[in-house]
Each structure stands twice: as structure tokens, then as C-alpha cells.
């Protein structure tokens, strides 16, 4: 799994590459814990994630709860159809704002939050 972070339009974009499952989910969780800044919205770019297991989806939901507690926005970007369908039928999708790509993100500023 490869993880990168950048700032785009006022969002902290976390780019994830590779499968998110029980073997890799610990890396993702640790990375998020260490790299999330408390005052910028988060976009999790999953464009290059071909598969997400049950453990992976749960990590997303945990992140969702955490960002709610932090009072910052979270959105998922570029989720492939198979994963979004899995999220839909298992009830995970309802908790997330989804965007097709990074270009769809709205301009965010600290003031807006």
C-alpha cells in the first residue's frame, strides 16, 4: 500500500494506492492518525484502490466518526463502482460524501469551516 498526502483547494488529500484489507488496514490507520491535521477537511482519494475488504470499510467508518468528532469534513474520491456497490448494499455508503475525482472538490478555506 502506498500513501501520500497533499493539499488541494484547501483539502488535505490522502491518496491511497493498493488493496485495503486486514493486512494493510493497519498502515492506513496509522498513517491517518499521524498525518491528519485537525483544521482542514479530508479527501480520501481511493482512485487506485482495486479492492476494499470488510476491515477496510470499517476503517473508513471509524475515520468518519473521528472527523465528526473533530468537526471537519470528510469525503471519498474516485471509489470504483464495485467498492461503492459493496458499500451501498452493506449500509456503509450512506455515511459518506462521494466525489468522482479531485477536480470535483469545492474550494475550502478555514473561514468556511
Amino acid at each position, binding site marked *: 500500500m502506498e500513501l501520500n498526502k497533499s493539499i488541494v483547494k484547501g483539502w488535505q488529500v490522502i491518496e491511497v494506492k493498493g488493496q485495503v484489507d*486486514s*493486512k494493510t488496514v493497519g498502515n492506513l490507520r496509522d498513517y491517518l492518525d499521524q498525518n491528519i491535521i485537525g483544521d482542514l477537511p479530508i479527501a480520501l482519494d481511493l482512485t487506485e484502490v482495486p479492492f476494499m*475488504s*470488510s476491515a477496510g470499510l470499517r476503517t473508513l*467508518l471509524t475515520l468518519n466518526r473521528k472527523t465528526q468528532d473533530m468537526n471537519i469534513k470528510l469525503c471519498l474520491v474516485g471509489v470504483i463502482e464495485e467498492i461503492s*456497490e*459493496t458499500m451501498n*448494499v*452493506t*449500509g456503509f455508503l450512506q455515511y459518506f460524501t462521494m466525489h468522482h475525482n479531485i477536480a470535483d472538490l469545492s474550494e475550502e478555506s478555514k473561514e468556511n469551516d
Partner: protein
Amino acid sequence: MIERIDQRATESINGYQIRQGKHLPFGASLIQNGINFSIYSSSGTSCTLVLFSIGKDLPLVEILIPESYKIGDVYSIIVFDINSEDLEYGYRIDGPHNPAQGHRFNKSEILMDPYARLISGRDEWGRNPNWERAYPYRARVPFDDFDWQNDRPLEINPADLVIYELHVRGFTKSNSSGVGHPGTYAGLVEKIPYLKELGINAVELMPIFEFDEFENSRINPETNEQLLNYWGYSTLGFFAPKAAFASTGKFGMQVDEFKQLVKSLHAAGIEVILDVVFNHTAEGNENGPTLSFKGLDNKTYYMLTPDGYYFNFSGTGNTLNCNNPIVRSLVLDCLRYWAAEYHIDGFRFDLASILGRDPWGTPLSNPPLLETLAYDPILSSCKLIAEAWDAGGLYQVGTFPAFGRWGEWNGKYRDCSRKFLKGDSGQIGEIAQRLQGSPDIYKQTGRSPATSINFITCHDGFTLADLVSFNQKHNEANGENNNDGNNDNLSWNCGAEGWSDDSNIKELRQKQMMNAMALLLTSRGIPMILMGDEVGRSQHGNNNAYCLDSPISWLDWKLIDSNRNLFNFTKALIHFRLEHPTLRVNSYESSNTNIINMPSCSFHGTSPWKPNWDENSRQLAWMMTSETGTNNNEVDIVYVAANMAHYASWYELPQISSSFQWMLKFNTGDINCQYHPLGISLTENGILVGERSIVIFMASKIILESTV
């Protein structure tokens, strides 16, 4: 947070960190940094935990559970630092192999945990399995942290239920369903708007506990069609949802998908009742496979003859020993689990009479299992419904040990209504009992109309369309030379066997289907409708389609358009029932005291208050009245006239208070319009009820112009 002090290994075996586990709960449970395993075997002499990486043929490791880890007859171990999502597990139990004494231990077999909550091996429906694979059905450990938000069981008053019996796969498998995930839990979610429109408020799902669709699979030599265990009345795992009914089964996410189905149905006001099969398992008799119970503690789990063979009260090879305390606990744990963890609203018990037999098969007067379930605190708001008979000849409709809690599939309602509808003589007296909730069989023991699950058709037997189209079963497609299935269908083909283009026959069949719905939905008790009967689904005369995973068994959604009249009629009737509390009164005693002085249910003939109880009578009317409103200051009256004779007759309606008028709502004999949404006021003293027809009136309060 203070760290637990028991989350550290005490020893290492084969490179795995372990310690003695928690003996309760049974099964495999996720803990902070490992998995707790607990398994029961009373006569086994040793127990080995076998762990697999998911999908691998050979075990990752085998860990002999130290004897010191055992308390009583329960082995328990914690294995630390293992990845639950990538894990399958089973057990080897050593012990005597002496079938004559009931023991069938064989440590060469890997056994599935009877408490497995997730099972792999049949993840995608109909995908040919690897028959050579050792340990074909494998226990896994699910996440159990589904976010239910505010969902809880709906606890709808039983008397207000309208149940719809459906097969999860068959409901949406047809391309005509148009859903994104045909044949799955998710597909069913997509069709919730249809169920809402129809008006039902409970679905009864045919078995969704994990089973193997390939059990006894075969090719029909005449048609070359693959025959499968489509219905699934053969449980592999009592705690695990059927993976292949989930679109996400291939990812092992059936638990979440099924929970999402329950949550979605609840959000739509629809309860979920599971058809559960505790009378037998998929292990068959002495010639069947050893999958779990046989190798864990054969003598405990199964009813055995004195020489160690299997009693067969289920008709499927073995009989679960439900009144053994160990098995009783398993059944209780199972139902509690589904009620608490899946928010299930009720259970229908297949061949429930078996649950009341002692270990040697004798019916018990106070079966401990049935009593335990009736008084269990977790199950206290769950509907408990018995199929009150078994394949061993025990028939307990009306006498099932109910402990004030159990409802029953009322087979007598089914039989009598079928005979009445086809115009058999001698049915008037009995049908009068059936449509008021069968007081003849339930009142004496203090039970109520909602004890009776009224049905005319169910998965077992003809569909409604076939009931009016076939005199004989036509089960050739099952590959058993038409020898399977019930021969006594109490059906009438209306003049021709099977499909006909005779318009008179087609019209009569349509009318008979509407008559059936009218009878069912104006009877007190809980009505149950079979999937697709509202649109005339046919199985081409097959009354036992247990092995047909094909369009014969699936709901063809195009029928909604081709049988629009029947659909609209049924829909209107269901809504009519829900709008009229008098049809749902849950007492045999009349409680009308304030503003009306009429019995709660009265019977009439072509003349009011004069029912004709003669042997040759085929005409009966009934009037149901009840006081409603918060202060019982309103009145609800429904009058139904059924004419099952082959000639029309004039029915004079009972006189009611001058402030009410009779409004005609339904008339199955009116070929042009069977349902009147606004009602038609009765201008004469009665109505001509056509041959083989039913009319339904409601009493509507007259609104005086001055008050408008």
C-alpha cells in the same frame, strides 16, 4: 483506559501465542488482539483447533488444545495475533468410533463449529464446488459492529400483521425484476417499495441459514436441468446467514448485507420473520457426511435408535435432539443471537412438532424447549410461529404446546378454505370457525385469533394460480417421476387442466383467485400470502418445487402488468384490512358495549341473521363489528357475503343504525369492476351476489348536509 491483564499469551504452540480462553460464549469471538475459541464435546477425548488461511487447502496450523484449558466439557483457547479476516477454522475431535453406542468420532475429519457465525464454501450461488476439498464448509469470524443507528424490532401487534412469504433468491432472480443485484438480500432491498405498495407489513423469509444448494444436487435425466437444493430446508450452520444470497458473499460480507436488509425493511415498517429449521441438519443419516455435530457429539445432538441409527421424524434422514439440554441451549442461543444481533422480529419453526418430542421421539406434554423459548427475556417480543406437525405423523394444529406465546400455521384454515372455495359441500360450519380465528381449536385453551396464521397457499404446495388451474400435481421437472409432493391438493382447475385459452375458464380462475384473497383478508387471525400470488404466479402445476432454481420458482415481475387487476384487487384488500380494525379483532369475546349492540362476529345467509348451516349450503355471510377510537366511541362494521354455489342469489343485508349506510367496496362477481375505492351506496335492501363470488361492504357513517 486500563489495559486488560488477560490479553497476554501464557505459552506458545507451533509458533502461535496462546492462553486458556473464556469458555463462554461458545463459538469464536474477536478480542482486542486475538480470537477466543470455545467448543463443547462431552464424549470426545481431545480437541484440536485447525486454522486455515482463507481459501487454502492445507491448514496454517493445528493446535491441540491443552487438557488444562478444559472446563467441564468445554474446550477454550485464545490465539493471539491472528488476522480474523484471513482466517477459516475448524476442529478435530478424537474419541470412540462406535456407531452402535452412538459415537462417531473421527479425528481425520475437520468439523465446523456449530456456533459459526460466518461460513465460507458456498459463497456464490450455483458455483460448482471442489468436491475433493477436505473441510468444505468453513467457519469464519465475522465483525459484529454493524451500525444499527436507532433500529430495533418493530413489535407490530400480531393481530395487525399481514405476512408475505418469500424466497430471497426467487423473489428477484428473474431478469424481469430489474434490480441491480438479482436473487440477493440487496435485490430484496430494491423491491421494498413494491412491498410497501402492496401493503404487507411482515416478510417471512424461507430459510436463510447457511445451507448447501448442491446437497443432493443432480441432473434431471429427461431435461438435463441441474437440480439444486433451492428451498434450503437443510441447515449447515444455525448462526450464519446464507452467503450466496448476498451480493457480497464472495467478499464474506453477508452479515452486513443481511443486517442492512433488516434495517431497510424496518425503516419501511416491515417486520422480518425467519423460517428456521431446527428439526434436522444437513448431515443426513448414517450414510450422510460428517460435517459438524456427528463428529462433535453425535449422541447428544441427534435422536438415535437403541442400536445407534438415526430416527427420521423429519423425513430427511436425521432428527435433531431438541429436548436434550445441550441442544436446547444451542437453539436458544441461536434464536437469541438472531433476535439481538440481527433485530429479527419473529421465527417460523419448520416441522415444529419435532421440537416437542423427547429423545426417543415420544411427544412431551410440556416440552422444555418450547417452554424455554416462550418465556425467554430476549425473545419476549418475538413472534414464535409453529408449523405444528412433523413428518413422523404428529399433527398438533390446535394442540401445539403454546405456553400462551406460540402461533400456528393453521393447516385447517388452508384445507377448509380450499374446499369452501371450490364449492365442496359440508363446509359452512367449519369455514365459519376458520374466518373468526378458529375459536373451535384455540378458544378453549385461552388463545386468541392471532394464534392462527391463516393461509390458503404457502411455498409447500400449489401457488394460488395453480390451485385454480390444476386438479393434479405436475412435478415431472423434479426428476422423481411425479412421485414427490402432496397428492391431496384440494384444488379445482375450473374446467381444464393447466393452461387454457377459454375465456370463461380464465375468467373463473381470476374470480376464484380474488375469492381466495377476499376470504383470507377478511378472516380474523394473521393472513399470510405466498410470494407472487397477488399477481397469479404459476409453477405450472408443480406443487413441490424444492429443487428448481429456475423461472418455475422465480417471481416473474411482468405478471404485475399482465395480471394488473388481481394485483390492484389484492393491494386494495390489504389496505382495506389495515383500515378496518374489526377484521383484526384479537378476541373471541365480543367487547361491544357502548354504542352498538351486535355480536363481534355474526353469521347470515341470503337473509340476515339466518345462516344456512345445511350440508348442501354453499352460501354464508358474516358481519364483523367493533368499537374503535380512543374512547370506543366509533364503530367499524364490515359485511362479507360469499356465494360459492354455481348460481347467483340475492343477499339481504342486516339492518344497521340509521346513521350508517352500507357501502359496497369489493365484488369479485363484477367482471368490469371488482373494487370500488370510494364505495357504492346500497340503494336496495340487498345485492345479487353472482355465482362463485364474494362481495364486501363497509358501514359508513352518513354525513348530514347541515354538518358539512
